[in-house]
């Protein structure tokens, strides 16, 4: 498969038998790869995994380079026309900012035509004919895209004030949903964490202590879980509502205007302001929602085995509510509790894990992933996070961005290539500082794994108390107060 011997990496083709078929590492497709079972995925040799990953990556690049505009520009800029080794792709990974590189003012000015043109540069799908004339915000723009194209985008929560938009399509979304189911399959002699929940073959109880619907990755995941192994009737959410991308981005937009001093010039559509007010009212009515949620869970699920997920701050907030009600060991010991997502700057005490587990009644399995990645990493019984072979890791030197060797233990910026998405370029550089080790783990999984300590570079910069006359005020509180006053003027 490697035509140029001078390229440095020469891997012989490797053939393995899977499900009675011979799979050849030289000709494998992403669909073939995706059918591998946990024992095959986690036990494949480094050489086999590297070969398959390189084959798929190289093919993917050839396939997308002419079709994804932003990739074509980047590859031209970097002078790269072929990928002959995994590290060849390092200069072609998109910075995490790429998926939010649209000017925020396009939304303010209602220029959804330009926003569509921006997104067009990130997907293989042709968006030039999409009619966005009726769009008034992110939600209606996503509606238009989904009605007229195969796109099924997801968006970030906009903690930084601006939504990232990941242009997945229907096939990517299906892979995303299926991958979540498959990564629950047991490896080796480890217990099947889903066995007790699935026993009885009825739709399983799914518990998620936040909003039911939306295009954020958690809601996309919930949709898949409900459709593929649960049911609406056995789904327990704190808020049975839609997480609006417009509301999620509003805080960031107002904050930006506040920092620029243009707050009073900002026009927010009354409809959106109404949505925002509803979300504020919901927060103030949170006690009622929580009560209803608890009542339903207590009535139906005490001692039952359930599938529970949510990021740590979310599960911790729920635990505090449960503790206040004197509840513990809420679910059956055969429940599956999945969490991750970092602590997102929230104040969670050091004993969060013990307390969440005591409240929920089953052990948590932590994972590490992000909206932009389908197959992330999950915790093994030895406490490290194993990265799915569907994802090619890169550990980049924090200063130079150059890839560090794929051997031993390396600390740096995490970047990846997501092999499971095919309609957009899966190469992505995160803002996370990680430590990755290549070499086997005592749990038996081969391949690289993460140390559990994962930090954000943006939170690590500067000294203890660096003070400079140069800078800007954080206008977050001012922005929120302004928004609340505008919403209350709505009448």
């Amino acid at each position, binding site marked *: 498969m490697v035509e140029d011997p001078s390229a440095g990496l020469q891997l012989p083709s490797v053939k393995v038998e899977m499900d009675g078929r011979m799979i050849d590492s030289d000709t494998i497709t992403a669909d073939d790869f995706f059918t591998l079972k946990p024992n095959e995925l986690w036990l494949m040799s480094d050489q086999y995994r590297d070969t398959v990953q390189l084959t798929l990556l190289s093919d993917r690049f050839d396939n997308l380079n002419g079709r994804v505009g*932003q990739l074509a520009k980047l590859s031209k800029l970097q002078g790269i026309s072929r990928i002959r080794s995994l590290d060849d792709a390092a200069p072609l990974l998109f910075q*995490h900012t790429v998926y939010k590189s649209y000017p925020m003012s396009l939304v303010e000015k209602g220029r959804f035509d330009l926003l569509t043109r921006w997104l067009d540069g990130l997907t293989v799908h042709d968006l030039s004919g999409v009619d966005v004339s009726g769009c008034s915000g992110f939600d209606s723009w996503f509606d238009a895209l989904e009605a007229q194209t195969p796109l099924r985008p997801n968006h970030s929560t906009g903690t930084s004030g601006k939504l990232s938009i990941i242009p997945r399509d229907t096939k990517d979304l299906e892979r995303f949903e299926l991958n979540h189911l498959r990564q629950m399959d047991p490896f080796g002699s480890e217990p099947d964490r889903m066995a007790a929940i699935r026993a009885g073959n009825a739709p399983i109880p799914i518990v998620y202590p936040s909003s039911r619907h939306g295009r954020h990755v958690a809601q996309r995941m919930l949709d898949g879980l409900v459709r593929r192994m649960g049911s609406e009737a056995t789904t327990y959410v704190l808020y049975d509502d839609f997480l609006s991308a417009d509301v999620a981005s509003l805080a960031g937009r107002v904050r930006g205007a506040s920092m*620029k001093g243009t707050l009073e010039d900002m026009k927010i559509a009354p409809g959106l302001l109404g949505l925002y007010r509803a979300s504020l009212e919901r927060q103030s009515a949170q006690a009622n929602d929580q009560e209803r949620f608890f009542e339903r869970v207590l009535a139906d699920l005490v001692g039952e085995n359930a599938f529970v997920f949510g990021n740590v701050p979310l599960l911790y907030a729920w635990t505090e509510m449960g503790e206040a009600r004197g509840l513990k060991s809420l679910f059956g010991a055969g429940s599956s509790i999945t969490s991750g997502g970092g602590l997102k700057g929230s104040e969670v005490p050091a004993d969060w894990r013990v307390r969440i587990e005591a409240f929920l009644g089953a052990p948590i399995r932590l994972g590490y992933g992000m909206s932009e990645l389908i197959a992330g990493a999950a915790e093994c019984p030895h406490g490290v996070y194993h990265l799915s072979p569907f994802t090619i890791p890169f550990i980049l030197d924090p200063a130079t*961005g150059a890839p560090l060797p794929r051997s031993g233990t390396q600390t740096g910026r995490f970047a990846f290539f997501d092999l499971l998405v095919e309609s957009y370029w899966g190469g992505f550089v995160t803002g996370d500082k990680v430590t990755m080790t290549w070499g086997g783990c005592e749990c038996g999984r081969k391949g690289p794994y993460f140390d559990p300590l994962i930090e954000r570079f943006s939170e*690590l910069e500067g000294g203890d108390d660096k*003070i400079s006359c140069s800078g800007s005020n954080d206008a977050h509180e001012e922005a929120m107060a302004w928004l609340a006053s505008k919403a209350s003027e709505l009448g």
Partner: protein
Amino acid sequence: MTTIDVPLIIRGQIIDSDMKSFNARAGAVDFRAPDLFAHMAKIPVQAHALRDLYSLTLDEIIDFMAMVGARLDLDTNEHLAAAFEMSSHTSGIARPILEALYRNTPKVFTREVICNFIERQIGRDYLEGWVRKPLAPGQVLNVRAFGARSVHVIAGNSPGVAFLTILRSAVTRSDTIIKLPSNDPLTATAILRTMVEIDATHPVTRHLSAAYWKGGDERIESSLYQPRNIEKIVAWGGFASITHITKYLQPGIDLITLDPKHSASIIGSQALASDAAIEEVAHLAAVDIGSFNQELCANARVIYVVCDDQDPEQMEKLNRLGERILAAIQALPPTISTPAKEPNPELQAEIEGIATQEDFYRLYRTADDSVGAVIVSQFDEAVEFSDILYNRTANVVPVPDIEDALRRISAAQQSIGVYPDTLKREIRDALAIQGAQHIVSLGKVTQMGFIGPQDGLEVERRMLKWVREMSID
């Protein structure tokens, strides 16, 4: 990893016990400093303790400061040399420029400069005695300015801040506790140690203290920031540091904030009138962007240029201006500006994000990211990350007219460089009303000096207590 000891200096006493470790720059420089909490009892003074400062004439204070200044020679003063060495690791300003700062700034501690400073900033008579102001027949108002017990939370991005703070404290006869910044804990310390060596019992020495504690340390701040201990707090920079302090505000404590600022340029359409104009403006803008490696609040970051973003011909000229600004930044002599000392990964990631978004932005940069970059917006909006434009990175933004540019200025922008010169007089009132605090010709923003108001305030006058004594027949 380098570890440096920063002593605690309380009123002429140098303390180096109860050391705790702190971080000066993540992963690169650590320092150890005494835990101030263990020495808290020595920190506050009663009001009457300030009387000894009034046993001195202003001339005696000036003479002492001049004596200190003469000893602040980088080649012979080991404390100042250590401060320079540490700053060269923690500051974003390049070593040769820092060295020039450490050599030149002590010159403000000379009799001539101090006398001028006193006269221009306060008025010597008010510091020397009661100034008589007859109001009406039989009514005389006498006014005198008195020093206060103060804490100065100072910035560490330039050593000039430590020099200025000590000068202000001495001439106003204040009792001053300097809260040291982690990015420059040694410059103020070096000046105070030099004072101690000259005369540890001199009233000026006895009313200056310097301590590092981590901003927000409640053990220290809740007992220090009490009206019985402190009358004034002068807080530089850092949103977080000011937020900590506001918790302790109550009647009796006067907070003087020198907020973190950014600065901008406003450039008229004349800049695009000819190739020669483009070259001239590019050079001037580059000086405002690049001086002191863009580490100061006065440095330009967003450059507004009057230009029709719908006119391809004008936009082509604007893009050329952006390209020429980058070239001019590269041409700045190393005594003014150098390539970045450290990459800023957050900024680099943002730049990569827009690098290929030609619909919205043109990016001018070289293969070496440390050189700097110029982003030319192709429509009338600055980039959303304009608050992290560092390492000689600027955003050129077309605006339809000067009035539009003015609307974008607020109190968050300290210095506004204006081109052409004739425009400056036309818009200075409007700029001031918008909130700008320092209006100057393009290319001159960092030539601010110590004379004049700072951030819209007469800081020295605010540091003083203005007392009236009346005679009424």
